[in-house]
């Protein structure tokens, strides 16, 4: 974070292959997942991933608003990704912008391919993702949080959807870019995996990579996703296992 905003490109990779924040090439940032922190939502989750902090809430299946979006053979999946004004160093102008609309769309489509929407015709499953603090990789953090929130809401689906970004920094393929690497690196490749089937349900890329680099990056991302998958499952187990301590809040 420290050198972001500096004019010259920071040294992103030491000769020993250590990254700006001290990680190895294939190392994830610390990840913490909490299932069910909100009581009003049908399901919720909070994710802290490196310096990212993301809250997700799921409502539904519920009545569709506005009515004309209703589909009479299945539920629709609506997603709203939003960054708080205070989530970045320079105040972000609140509200919808092209970036958040795009992210909302790709996340909603990723979930549409795993949710068994035919079980709830004429309803809507609404996913809200609020980025409270951003440090690169918020669409992946949002997807992870929303996916845990969907499971917490009891929505039937094929699997949880772990996600991670892979990228190219100083000529090397690295896992889970941070802000400096995202800004000054050569490529960014966010991806979301369905572990049960091995399918990718989100794949975007910015920058350049050779074909060989792309296939190495995908392998690295899939491995990363499995680590994240285990943390997501642990968070849900923690909330629903019999040893769960009594909560205080109402």
């Amino acid at each position: 974070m420290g050198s972001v905003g500096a004019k010259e490109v920071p040294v992103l990779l030491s000769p020993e292959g250590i990254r700006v924040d001290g990680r190895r090439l294939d190392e994830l940032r610390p990840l913490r997942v909490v299932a069910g922190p909100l009581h009003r939502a049908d399901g919720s989750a909070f994710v802290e991933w490196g310096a990212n902090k993301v809250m997700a809430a799921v409502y539904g299946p519920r009545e569709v608003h506005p009515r004309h979006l209703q589909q009479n053979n299945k539920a629709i999946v609506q997603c709203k990704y939003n960054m708080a004004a205070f989530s970045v160093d320079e105040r972000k102008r609140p509200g919808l912008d092209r970036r958040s609309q795009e992210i909302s769309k790709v996340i909603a489509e990723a979930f549409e391919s795993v949710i068994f929407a035919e079980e709830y015709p004429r309803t809507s499953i609404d996913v809200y993702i609020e980025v409270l603090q951003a440090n690169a990789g918020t669409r992946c953090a949002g997807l992870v949080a929303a996916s845990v929130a969907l499971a917490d809401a009891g929505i039937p689906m094929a699997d949880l959807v772990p996600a991670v970004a892979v990228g190219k920094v100083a000529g090397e393929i690295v896992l889970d870019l941070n802000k400096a690497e995202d800004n000054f690196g050569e490529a960014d490749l966010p991806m979301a995996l369905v572990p049960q089937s091995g399918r990718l349900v989100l794949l975007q890329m910015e920058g350049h990579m050779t074909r060989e680099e792309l296939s190495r990056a995908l392998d690295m991302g899939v491995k990363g996703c499995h680590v994240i998958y285990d943390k997501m499952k642990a968070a849900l187990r923690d909330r629903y296992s019999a040893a769960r301590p009594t909560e205080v809040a109402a």
Partner: protein
Amino acid sequence: MDSGHLPGHRTRGREGHSSHPSRDRTLVLPGEEIPSDGLRPGSGTYRVHGKVYASVLGLVAERPPFVQVLPLSGRYIPKAGDVVLGTVTDVQGTFWLLDIGAPRWAPLHMTGTPWRIEIGETDRYLRVGDAVAVRVENLEATGRIGVTMVGDGLGRLEGGTIITVSPARIPRVIGRGGSMIQSIQSLTGATMIVGQNGRVWVDGTPEAIGRVRQALRIIDLDGHRPGLTERIQDLLGSRPPDVTVPRLPAPPAEPELAIPDDELPEPPDEP
């Protein structure tokens, strides 16, 4: 896809359970494989390439010939015959729409009420925000939930308050043969109506309602652990806690109303 067994070919029995530890009641998450032993995928599961996976977060239940997952969370899924508590969200000329905590709003037609209503006069009987006890009558493939207000214990709820718990906990709120509601009612002096949709109507003195609220919160958060009855009885005790000053000399007037399918009780008269 799976052709390894025939419908009706049931090999599971007691010995099947003893050969390996029972998987019943283990917690599974969406996407986790459930060893099915030839059982067919039931609700809360799906099958790909002959393997059965969970589709919801819940507990595995083997119900030969099916293996299913009983959800631990999620909205109320209506079942015909359930008594549920709802609030009016919309009033139309011949019907009201009720929020019963299900995926859809449930229409209550004016012919499903004990009243004789002229078309267009629906809002003289129930308005937006009113609470009612209704019974789920029919479920259509479209997801429409038909409800009726004709029947014992059904009608408009007056006074009291509604406390919400997880619909998955309602069997614990009721207890075996209604034992839990009965003991909560008799220990607090409150009157309760339990809806299968996780809503509980409670009426009584403010102290009684507060204590029922505490008891329901314990059931909601901790109801899956054994010894629930004892914990509730410890909480409610045989006498109210010393900190509260009794306002009425002898409040336990209603506890003979133990099962919620009596007529709707009137709110207790103020002294």
